[in-house]
């Protein structure tokens, strides 16, 4: 415990200061006058002296006398009045610190601690450097923030450009030549290729192939992916219901449910099939034998695919290169025709039709006999 001398001629002040110094962790040796203070200096060798004004000798005189005896002794003056001019004058005379009234434990303890580790002033003609250790961290944090902000903005811009480029693009070459059907499922475009007997799952964001699944059993001519299952129609008229897993596991088989059918779609309640040779549309009940509820003449040239957009039944007419919207009550009545100029040149034959919730997509095979890669077109009806 560091020891300090307390020179306070007034007994009450002396008692208070000794008490406060003791509470602050100092061994305080009281002195009522200069003679006693000199004795304390000699006998106790205190680390510093704390003094106040006396009735006969003010702090300046006491300070001068102490400095004459012990010039290197740090001195703290406890002032009775807050007087900045006098405080600075005392400090110029040699007081290390002047404590302003009221004397509190916090102020006194802080002043005593400060006095014991006092240093001089650094004079400099160069600008002062901030001692704060947090400055490099602050600048690093600011730089990091801006770097992250710029990086994030760049990534966002790239993503926007990618989306914009994708939105502008209307057609894509497929990495296979024989697409035969298409359907949307959970944001992915599923395309069936009859030659490789595989289902290709394309990401709707960039049409990249995300997954390829081999189609087991008899190869279908058409399929429709619903929320729970995949419906497929084979050339012999067999309809199958399969799980949407990696192996497309068979759930139910309906032999000869739709002979001569070329297109199938499930609207959530009924199953619809289109028949090219007979040129009819059929509505099936979703029961054990897919009972036909009705048949209507196809109002177009040659049906190639069917799709349900949530409200209406649409068909792809490959002969007239157009989309037909059918009246659900009387499907032989067309409520809208949308021409597909993408197929006007006759180099491609539309074979698959899908609905992504906003737009139609068609899959096409090149003619004659698939000399070129298959293609996918995106069709926006709002532009027509």
């Amino acid at each position: 415990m560091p020891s300090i001398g307390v020179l306070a001629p007034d007994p009450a002040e002396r008692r208070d200061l000794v008490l406060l110094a003791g509470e602050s962790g100092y061994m305080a040796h009281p002195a009522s006058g200069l003679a006693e203070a000199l004795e304390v200096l000699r006998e106790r060798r205190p680390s510093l002296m704390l003094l106040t004004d006396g009735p006969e000798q003010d702090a300046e005189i006491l300070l001068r006398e102490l400095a004459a005896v012990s010039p290197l002794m740090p001195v703290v003056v406890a002032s009775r009045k807050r007087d900045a001019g006098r405080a600075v004058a005392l400090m110029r005379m040699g007081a290390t610190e002047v404590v302003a009234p009221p004397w509190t434990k916090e102020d006194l303890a802080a002043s005593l601690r400060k006095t014991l580790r006092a240093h001089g002033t650094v004079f400099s003609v160069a600008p002062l450097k901030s001692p704060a250790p947090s400055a490099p961290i602050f600048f690093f944090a600011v730089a990091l923030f801006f770097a992250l902000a710029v990086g994030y903005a760049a990534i966002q811009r790239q993503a926007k450009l990618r989306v914009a480029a994708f939105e502008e693009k209307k057609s894509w070459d497929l990495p296979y030549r024989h697409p035969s059907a298409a359907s949307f499922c959970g944001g992915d475009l599923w395309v069936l290729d009859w030659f490789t007997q595989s289902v290709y799952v394309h990401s709707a964001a960039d049409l990249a192939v995300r997954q390829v699944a081999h189609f087991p059993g008899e190869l279908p001519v058409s399929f429709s992916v619903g929320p729970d299952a995949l419906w497929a129609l084979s050339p012999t008229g067999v309809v199958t219901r399969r799980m949407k897993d990696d192996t497309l596991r068979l759930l139910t088989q309906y032999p000869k449910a739709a002979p001569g059918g070329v297109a199938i779609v499930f609207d959530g309640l009924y199953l619809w099939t289109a028949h090219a040779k007979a040129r009819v549309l059929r509505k099936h009940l979703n029961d054990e034998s897919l009972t036909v509820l009705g048949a209507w003449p196809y109002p177009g040239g040659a049906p190639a695919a069917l799709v349900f957009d949530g409200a209406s039944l649409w068909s792809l007419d490959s002969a007239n290169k157009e989309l037909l919207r059918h009246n659900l009550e009387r499907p032989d009545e067309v409520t809208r025709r949308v021409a597909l100029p993408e197929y006007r040149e006759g180099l491609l034959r539309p074979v698959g039709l899908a609905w992504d919730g906003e737009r139609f997509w068609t899959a096409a095979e090149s003619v004659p006999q698939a000399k070129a890669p298959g293609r996918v077109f995106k069709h926006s009806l709002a532009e027509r």
Partner: protein
Amino acid sequence: MRHARRSSASVPVVVSFAETSAKKDCWGRLLALAPSGARLSTRFRVERGERVFLSLRIADEEFQGIAALATRVDKDREGYALAELKFTDELQKRRLAKVLLDILST
């Protein structure tokens, strides 16, 4: 000539506040002094952005009311305010520079 030198005792300084402030004059010590600014240690409260005026004496030269702006205020481990002051008066800065050059060149 050296660019910096530490004195044996830190310079005591009277700190005054703007007339619009209700604060009384207080005192402290300069831990560093340059023509551009100073680092002040004081037991009294100084706030960041506050205008202060320093009165001090160095090398027998009296400076009265050096205008300064507290650009940063921290607390040291004793609870003293440690204020970074930026001098704002060009004439006072020039005079300070001259005195400091004298001190550093002797």
